[in-house]
């Protein structure tokens, strides 16, 4: 299985991480912006308030004329640096100040009204935003004091842009870091997954690579490698046990066969009766050796030892070949043997063992199906496996006996001839298991249907 970049835990984590960074940076810069903006406004308001206070004080001391003088003085001394003054009567007509006419429609409702003022500056016309406050002087005249806030506005705009850039860039940086991080993580995990799959597929000598980073992945890989070492060691021990068992049983059988065969060369030649019994004994030895080989094969498969040197086997083609091999024998028995193979039904396996599996199933059918019967071998490709079916219309196996039928030395029915080893289906089950496949015995209504699913 190949992991997509976006369905790994790492990529989900990195997306979450990016969102978190964006949120954190956004909150930090956003509140800094809001704080700064209110600080600037407060500062402006403070200046306006102190100006108003000093002008009101002037009014209290020297009346309208004093305030007018003071305003004119301040306009002169401050020039265009941003202070706006206006003294108006109760009908909003200008008495003094650097504003030509009352900027509001009557009395402004807000405490700090804002308006725009147009000025002629060298070479161009400019519009300045102004923040102001209005006081009604005793006597009904109105005093307006304002400050040009265009600088503050510009600063706020720049701050806003900077904030947005900050959020954008840190999001990008977090996303890139997250992507890189999850890519590296996914790659290492995928490397581990791929190696494990190859090991499962039979490359038992392979080990997980260590990055040399001494991180948790290396620690994990090292642990897995230790487990694999141990498994390989056990498989080796098992193999050696099987080898010596096979050797220790086959060698005396070989000597026995040799002695018997040497008798046949006796000169002068033996009597026909003696010859006959020696030949019969030789057949028994051969039968014994076949049973032994089958038992060892079953034991080896059941021990969980891996399938050695698997390769691509076309089960469809193999089934067709074996059916063709058996067809004359079946024909001689009056049994129809058909094959419905699907081409390119490839599994990773051992051709000889799969051929043995098919042979046993066909021979099993030939043993039980009476003349006039039919055996059908079918191979079908499924989504991720190959389904091999051998069905017949013979006597079948009763449902309650099916589980037992794959156990060694179990035979059913009168059709079972004594020369069978009783190991046929056990070996089939063992070979299926060795290929990580599944064996199912079903009723063929009437007859037996054996279904073997082998992972492709």
């Amino acid at each position: 299985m190949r992991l997509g970049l976006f369905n790994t835990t790492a990529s989900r984590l990195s997306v979450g991480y990016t969102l978190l960074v964006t949120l954190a940076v956004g909150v930090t810069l956003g509140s800094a912006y809001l704080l700064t903006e209110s600080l600037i406004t407060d500062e402006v308001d403070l200046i306006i308030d102190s100006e108003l206070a000093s002008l009101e004080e002037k009014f209290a001391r020297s009346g309208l004329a004093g305030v007018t003088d003071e305003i004119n003085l301040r306009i002169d001394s401050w020039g265009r640096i941003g202070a706006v003054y206006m003294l108006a009567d109760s009908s909003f007509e200008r008495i003094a100040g650097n504003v030509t006419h009352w900027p509001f429609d009557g009395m402004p409702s807000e405490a700090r009204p804002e308006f725009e003022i147009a000025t002629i500056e060298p070479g161009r016309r400019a519009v300045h935003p102004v923040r102001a406050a209005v006081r009604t002087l005793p006597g009904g005249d109105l005093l307006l004091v304002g400050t040009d806030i265009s600088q503050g506005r510009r600063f706020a705009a720049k701050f806003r842009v900077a904030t947005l850039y900050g959020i954008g860039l840190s999001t990008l940086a977090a996303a890139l870091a997250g992507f890189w991080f999850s890519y590296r993580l996914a790659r290492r995990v995928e490397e581990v997954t791929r190696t494990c799959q190859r090991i499962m597929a039979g490359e038992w000598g392979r080990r997980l690579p260590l990055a040399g980073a001494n991180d948790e992945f290396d620690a994990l890989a090292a642990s897995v490698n230790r487990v694999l070492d141990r498994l390989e060691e056990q498989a080796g021990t098992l193999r050696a046990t099987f080898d010596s068992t096979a050797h220790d049983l086959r060698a005396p059988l070989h000597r026995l066969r040799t002695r018997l065969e040497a008798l046949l060369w006796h000169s002068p030649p033996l009597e026909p009766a003696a010859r006959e019994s020696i030949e019969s004994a030789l057949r028994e030895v051969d039968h014994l050796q076949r049973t032994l080989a089958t038992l060892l094969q079953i034991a080896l498969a059941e021990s969980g030892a891996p399938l050695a040197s698997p390769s691509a086997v076309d089960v469809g083609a193999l089934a067709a070949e074996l059916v063709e091999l058996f067809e004359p024998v079946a024909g001689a028995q009056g049994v129809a043997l058909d094959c419905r193979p699907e081409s390119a039904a490839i599994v990773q396996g051992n051709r000889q063992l799969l051929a043995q599996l098919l042979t046993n199933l066909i021979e099993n059918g030939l043993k039980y199906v009476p003349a006039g019967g039919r055996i059908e071998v079918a191979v079908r490709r499924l989504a991720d496996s190959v389904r091999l079916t051998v069905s017949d219309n013979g006597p079948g196996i009763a449902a309650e006996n099916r589980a037992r039928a794959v156990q060694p030395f179990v035979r059913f029915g009168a059709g079972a001839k004594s020369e069978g080893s009783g190991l046929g289906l056990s070996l089939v089950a063992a070979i299926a298991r060795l290929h990580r496949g599944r064996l199912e015995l079903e009723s063929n209504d009437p007859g037996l249907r054996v279904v073997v699913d082998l992972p492709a």
Partner: protein
Amino acid sequence: MHVLLIEDDIEAARFLIKGLCESGYTVDHAADGRAGLLRATEGQFDLIVTDRMLPQVDGLAIIEQLRGREIGTPVLVLSALGSVDDRIRGLKAGGDDYLTKPFAFAELLARIEALLRRPSAPHVTRLKVEDLEFDLLARRVTRAGRELELTARELKLLEFLMRRAGQVVTRTMLLEGVWDLHFDPQSNLIDVHISRLRQAIDRGSDHPLIHTVRGSGYVLRSDG
């Protein structure tokens, strides 16, 4: 023909030596791996028959050493290890044939004969035994000029026999060579296939070409 037998099982060896000598071979015997390797590298042999599991130097190691020294003498491996992988390992190491113990002496003899008389060169395009002719390119077979109808598998079986004309070919050799099956099915499959082929080739002929060799297998040859 000079055969080197490397076998540590003295009784089995004695039997093989006797049988091979009676069949017309000259046999040298080595009872362990080291002696066998020494003998194999020093002497001139037409064939080496070695056991797989030997004291001191293993049978497969002997083959690897020989092949490493570019000694191409055909090697037949005898083994008490009979699983499919053992066989593959034996052939991978450079062995030319692999026989699992216990075996019939006739089987060994047929295989030795096959190794000593390698089948006719692969570039040959026509095979001919008496009046039986096989055009390998056109996949056409004629007997006394009359064309025979054979299936693809029968053609393969016949080619195997004709390339080894005059040699005894056992049932397991046919299963391995024609069907690539390295185990013994219980049924008499080969006999049935041979009898079909015989029907096609020898029916109505005064000179049957396919002969049964009792206790061994079959031979295709011209003499009666």
